[in-house]
C-alpha cells in the first residue's frame, strides 16, 4: 500500500477542521494554566506551612501522574457528581490543570530571581503587598519567563491529541475516524504528524526569536 | 646542525576571524632557556603558548620542537599534514600551567596528577601514585592528596596544577599568567616555587606574566610583545631597564606605577 495523493487531498479539509479544535484547546488550556499556575505560585509564597505543603502535594501529584488517566478520570467521574459539560471543555480543563503544575514552577523560578531588595524598596515606599506583587514584582518577573512559558505552550499543543481518547474531534481523532472507515491510516496519520511538526517548529523558532529579543533588552 | 633549538617559530601567522593575533612571528628558544614574554593584555602573548601546546593551530608558518615540525611531516620528499599520532608525540614534550588552574573538579588531588601518567604514558598505578606523592611533597601539599580541588585555596590549586604538568616529565614547560588569579601574597609563594623548580631542572621554560620582579629573577631573556609582534628582545636588564622602544617604556611605566 503506497501513498495516495488524491486521497490525501480529499481528507485534508476534514483534518484542517480538526486543527481548529486542536488550536482552540491549546490556547484556552494555556490560559487556564497561566492563571491557575500563578495562583499556585502565589500560595507557595505565603508564609503558611500547611498551605505550602498541600499546594506542593497537589502540584506534585498532578505532575507525577499521566495526563491520559487524568482525562479519563474527569471524563467519567465529572458526570457522576452531576457536572455534565462537553468533552472539549473537560479536555481543556484537564489540560489547563495539568499544565498549571508546570507553569507554577516557572512562575516560582521567575519570582525567586527578583532580588529581596525590590520587596524591601516597595515596603519602604509603603506599597501594599498586593500592589508590590502586581506593580513591582510581576512586571519584572514575567519577561524572563516568557520563553519557558512558550515551551509549555508547545508541550501542551503536542499533548492535545490525547483529547481524542475522550471523543474530542481534534486532528488525531478525525484522522483515526478516517482510518477506521477507509482502512487507510498512512495518509491521515502522516498528515497529522506533519502538521504538528510544522506548527511546533514554527513555534520553537518564534520562541527562540523572543528569547533573543529579551536577552538583548536586558 | 649539532645544537638543536628547543623551540622555533618560523613565520607564524594566527588570526581569529578578522583579528590578527600573531603576525609573521619568528622566535627561537635554546634548550634550558627561560624566556619571559611581557606586554599589554590582548597582545597575543598567550596565543604563543597555546600554539606551542597545540591548543591552537597556526594559520601558516612552522612550529618546530627540538628541530621537528609539530604540524607537518615529510612523506616522499613532500611536506604533508602530520598524523594525529605525530602531533600527540610532539605534544608529549610540552607541559602547561594555566591561569585558571583547570584542575579536574571530579578527581581528587592525587588522581588529578596520576591520571595522565597512567592513561597517557601507560605507567603502572603504583608507580604513578609514588611519583605523584613525591611531586605533591615537592610543591608542599603532601597532606592534600585525598582532597577535592574545590576544597583547596587558589594558591594550592595552582601548586597541584604545576605538579600535574610535571608528572608527564615534559622537556618544555609553559606558564600562562599562572598568578593572575591569585592574591599578591599567595602569588609570591607560587612564584618562589617556580623559581626553585627552574633552578633544579634543565627544562626549557616559557612564561607569560605581569610580575616584573619575577621576570627579572627568572628570565634569561625577556620579550616585549605588542599587537602581534615582538618589538623588544633581550636580557632582563636590556628590556626592563633600558628599553629601546617608546611602546615598551610606556608599558613599563604603567606597570611600575600600578605596582
Amino acid at each position, binding site marked *: 500500500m503506497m501513498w495516495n495523493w488524491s486521497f490525501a487531498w480529499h481528507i485534508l479539509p476534514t483534518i484542517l477542521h480538526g486543527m481548529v479544535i486542536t488550536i482552540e484547546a491549546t490556547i484556552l488550556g494555556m490560559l487556564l494554566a497561566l492563571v491557575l499556575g500563578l495562583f499556585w505560585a502565589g500560595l507557595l509564597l505565603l508564609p503558611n506551612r500547611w498551605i505550602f505543603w498541600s499546594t506542593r502535594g497537589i502540584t506534585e501529584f498532578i505532575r507525577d501522574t499521566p495526563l491520559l488517566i487524568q482525562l479519563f478520570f474527569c471524563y467519567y467521574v465529572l458526570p457522576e457528581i452531576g457536572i455534565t459539560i462537553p468533552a472539549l471543555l473537560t479536555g481543556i480543563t484537564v489540560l489547563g490543570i495539568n499544565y498549571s503544575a508546570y507553569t507554577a514552577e516557572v512562575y516560582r523560578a521567575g519570582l525567586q530571581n527578583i532580588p529581596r531588595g525590590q520587596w524591601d524598596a516597595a515596603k519602604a515606599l509603603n506599597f501594599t503587598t498586593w500592589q508590590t506583587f502586581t506593580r513591582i514584582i510581576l512586571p519584572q518577573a514575567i519577561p524572563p519567563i516568557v520563553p519557558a512559558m512558550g515551551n509549555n505552550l508547545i508541550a501542551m499543543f503536542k499533548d492535545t491529541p490525547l483529547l481524542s481518547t475522550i471523543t474530542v474531534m481534534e486532528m488525531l481523532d478525525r484522522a483515526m475516524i478516517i482510518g477506521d472507515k477507509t482502512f487507510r491510516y498512512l495518509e491521515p496519520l502522516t498528515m497529522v504528524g506533519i502538521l504538528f511538526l510544522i506548527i511546533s517548529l514554527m513555534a520553537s523558532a518564534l520562541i527562540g526569536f523572543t528569547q533573543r529579543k529579551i536577552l538583548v533588552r536586558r | 646542525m649539532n645544537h638543536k633549538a628547543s623551540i622555533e617559530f618560523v613565520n607564524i601567522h594566527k588570526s581569529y576571524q578578522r583579528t590578527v593575533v600573531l603576525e609573521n612571528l619568528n622566535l627561537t628558544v635554546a634548550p634550558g632557556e627561560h624566556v619571559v614574554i611581557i606586554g599589554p593584555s590582548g597582545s597575543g602573548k598567550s596565543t604563543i603558548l597555546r600554539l606551542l601546546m597545540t591548543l591552537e593551530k597556526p594559520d601558516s608558518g612552522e612550529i618546530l620542537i627540538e628541530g621537528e615540525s609539530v604540524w607537518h611531516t615529510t612523506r616522499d620528499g613532500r611536506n604533508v599534514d602530520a598524523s594525529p599520532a605525530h602531533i600527540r608525540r610532539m605534544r608529549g614534550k610540552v607541559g602547561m600551567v594555566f591561569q585558571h588552574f583547570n584542575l579536574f573538579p571530579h578527581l581528587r588531588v592525587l588522581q588529578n596528577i596520576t591520571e595522565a601518567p597512567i592513561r597517557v604514558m601507560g605507567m603502572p598505578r603504583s608507580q604513578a601514585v609514588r611519583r605523584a606523592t613525591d611531586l605533591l611533597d615537592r610543591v608542599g601539599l603532601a597532606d592534600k592528596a585525598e582532597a577535592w*580541588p574545590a576544597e583547596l585555596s587558589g594558591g594550592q590549586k595552582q601548586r597541584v596544577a604545576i605538579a600535574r604538568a610535571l608528572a608527564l616529565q615534559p622537556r618544555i614547560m609553559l606558564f600562562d599568567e599562572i598568578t593572575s588569579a591569585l592574591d599578591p601574597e599567595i602569588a609570591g609563594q607560587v612564584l618562589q616555587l617556580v623559581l626553585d623548580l627552574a633552578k633544579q631542572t634543565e627544562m626549557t621554560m616559557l612564561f607569560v606574566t605581569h610580575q616584573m620582579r619575577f621576570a627579572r629573577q627568572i628570565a634569561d631573556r625577556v620579550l616585549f610583545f605588542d599587537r602581534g609582534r615582538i618589538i623588544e628582545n633581550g636580557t632582563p636588564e636590556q628590556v626592563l631597564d633600558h628599553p629601546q622602544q617608546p611602546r615598551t617604556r610606556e608599558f613599563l611605566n604603567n606597570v611600575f606605577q600600578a605596582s
Partner: protein
Amino acid sequence: MLHMLPMMLRGALVTGEVTAGAIVVASVASSCAVAMRLSTLTALDWPARVYIELFRGTSALIQLFWAFYALPLVLPFRPSPIITAIVVLGLNGGAYGAEILRGAILSVPRGQHDAATALNFSATTKVFRVVLPQAWPLILPPMANLFIDMLKNSALAGLVQVTDITFNAQILQESTLRNAEVYGLALVIYFIMALVLAGFMRLLERRMKFPVGARI
C-alpha cells in the same frame, strides 16, 4: 476496590516493563544521536538533527498510532504491540535525552578541554575521563524528569493494546462502571511508581556528586 488490585498490579508490571524498555532504547538512541550531533562531520550531524526534531516536533501519541496503524502497512511484518510501544516511546524519549546530553556536554568549560589536551589525553580518555564525569551531575536531574515523563507516557501504550495499567483500567471501568475507583486507583499506582523512580534517581544523583568549586 480490593478485587481490582490484582489486575491493576499485573498492569503495573507491564507498565514497568514498557517504561524500563523505553528507557534502555532512549539511552542508546540519545547517546548515538548526541555523538553524531557533536561530531564535526555534517553527514552525521544532519540525520541526528532530523531524528531529534522529528520526534520532538510531533506528539508521542501520533508517533505511536502511526507506528501501530500506518507503519505495518509498509513493513513486511507486524511487530508486537509491546515492542512497538517500547521502541516508539524510547525513540521519543531519546530525542529529548539527546538535547539534555548535548547541553550538559557543551557546558563543560573550555579550560577543561585545554587541560586534557595539555596532558596529552587521547580523544576517548578526554571524553570518558574528563568531559562525561563532569557532565553527569548536570545530566542526572533533567534525566530523572525525562524518565518520569516516560513512565507517564507509557500510559499511551494502553491505547495500542499493551495490557498495562491504563488498558486494564479501561477493562475494569467497562465491566464494573466504578469510574472513580478504577481511575483513582490507576492515578495512585502511577504516582507511587513515579515516586519510586524519582527516589532511585535521587540516590544515583547523590552517588555521582563531587564537591564543585566556583573556579577550578
